[in-house]
């Protein structure tokens, strides 16, 4: 019974979704951070533009990246706690019933 559930399409799909979510969010974080480094190296004039009093885009982006990094972990945790965990609990239940 346990084998059957673990080989089921439902379980395989869940495993795949989890991998996609993890890798996608990782990729976003990598792009954001190395994008920032790219801007610092090659787009200095852009980052030096003032947008809020004397505060320029570069400083704002620095703060935004820190916030976004945290928000991304928040998005992951909401997905994992609300959707993923519920499905895992369901699968665990099935396994225990079968045994």
């Amino acid at each position: 019974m346990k084998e059957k559930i673990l080989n089921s399409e439902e379980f395989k799909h869940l495993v795949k979704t989890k991998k996609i979510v993890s890798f996608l969010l990782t990729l976003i974080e990598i792009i954001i951070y190395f994008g920032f480094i790219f801007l610092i190296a090659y787009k200095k004039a852009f980052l030096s533009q003032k947008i809020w009093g004397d505060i320029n885009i570069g400083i704002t982006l620095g703060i935004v990246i820190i916030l976004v990094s945290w928000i991304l972990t928040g998005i992951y945790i909401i997905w994992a706690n609300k959707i993923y965990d519920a499905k895992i609990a369901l699968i665990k239940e099935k396994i225990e019933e079968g045994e």
Partner: protein
Amino acid sequence: MVNTTLGEITFTGLFFFLLFVAITLYITYKATERTRTTTEFYTARRSITALQNGLALSGDYISAASFLGIAGLVSLKGFDGLIYAVGWIVGWPIIMFLIAEPLRNIGKYTFADAVAYRLKLKPIRISASLGTLTTVLFYLIAQMVGAGSLIKLIFGIPYEIAIIIVGVLMISYVLFGGMLATTWVQIIKACMLLGGATLLVVLTLYQFGFNYSELFSNITQKYGENFIQPGRLIENPVEAISLGIALMFGTAGLPHIMMRFYTVPDAKEARKSVFYATGFIGYFYILTFTIGFGAAAVVGHEIISMIDNGGNMAAPLLAEALGGGVFLGFLGAVAFATILAVVVGLTLAGASAVSHDIYAGVIKHGKADEKREVKAAKISTLGLGLLAIILGISFKGQNVAYMVGLTFSIAASANFPSLFMSIFWKKFTTYGAIWSIYTGLILNLVLIILSPSVWVDILKNDFAIFPFRNPGIFSFFASFLAGIVVSFLTKEKKAEEKFEEERIKSILGSTSD
């Protein structure tokens, strides 16, 4: 001369310091009764909550180098210092998405546990624990030398005595209180640090009518527009990307951070604790660079660099300017707690690698009885602690700044790739893992010796053989490449078969047993 009580032992400084020591030693004393079994010593009986672990992770992670150092860098270099502040946070989402949950579900006590799960245990344990120990030792040296110099700057205590005080306290916490005491030292430190930094920022912004933009107007009037614009730090993109890779993936390969995921009851709590930790750490770095800019505006470059060339005293000086001797005393104690907590976490992780991976896993073939393993862990703690004191004193006066970067690039090259491939790649083999770890470790060490940081600055040669100061990018990819190539050459049926089991365990947790 500058009028400051920095560099003297003041009544308030001593008071807060002794208060911190008294509380943490009392907790350690209380924890001794609960430090008898291996699960207690290594993981505090997996009884830590997500919020506690989140605070403890921040405590383990935020070192004095990144608090005083980044505040100082921002105060003197402006925007270029901010690049570092951002770099210190980006590893945390990676830990959350890729490492925390599988690590918690597969492993038992150490990073090597997780890598070795479906591979041949012994050879992996040796190489993985070497990766752990090298990371821990370099970081310990950097932290000890930093501790000696910083405590001397703040309290005026001689370097050697400062190191011995730090060393003795650190050994006592781990030896008698194991993970439980270590965790509470981290939690108390994190609360003091976050509280102190918040107060410092509130006092700074009060000077500018709580208008963030006003602070920047003041700075640009004093130092010109250039100060808050990207400058010369990232002239060479290879260096910048290399450092970025080390910070991003090195964070996810730090043994004392990874070990913390075993202290919570399950993967869900592990996940939540990373969310809390990322929030605290991100908030802290936003405070830190605000403190740096605040120090530039309120204290000024002249005084900051007069007290310390690198700007390390920017935050304490700002505290004294805004809150007088009392606040300076408090911040001194905060800095001390910051230093201490990091070395405590490192010592525990290093000692666990010796007792759990090498003693119990290799010498006793995984069949050590529990009492003996705890005893071995305590002996390792004592040995590692004494070694840290000796190394700290013998590296006096050396420029060890490159060692912090080195620690992260070793963690990124020796620890992260093997852990990542072990979790995600079915065809990963024992030899693949061993080659991946040694390639990352050795290449990194060789390149740093040949780099300008050691070859020119320390060994006084005219030209560096290897042109970059940050070798992370090369050793990181070389480690992956070695792991992939060797795994293809050495097929391992058993490891492949066990992958499904590992994956199910990493998803369902221990209940699938």
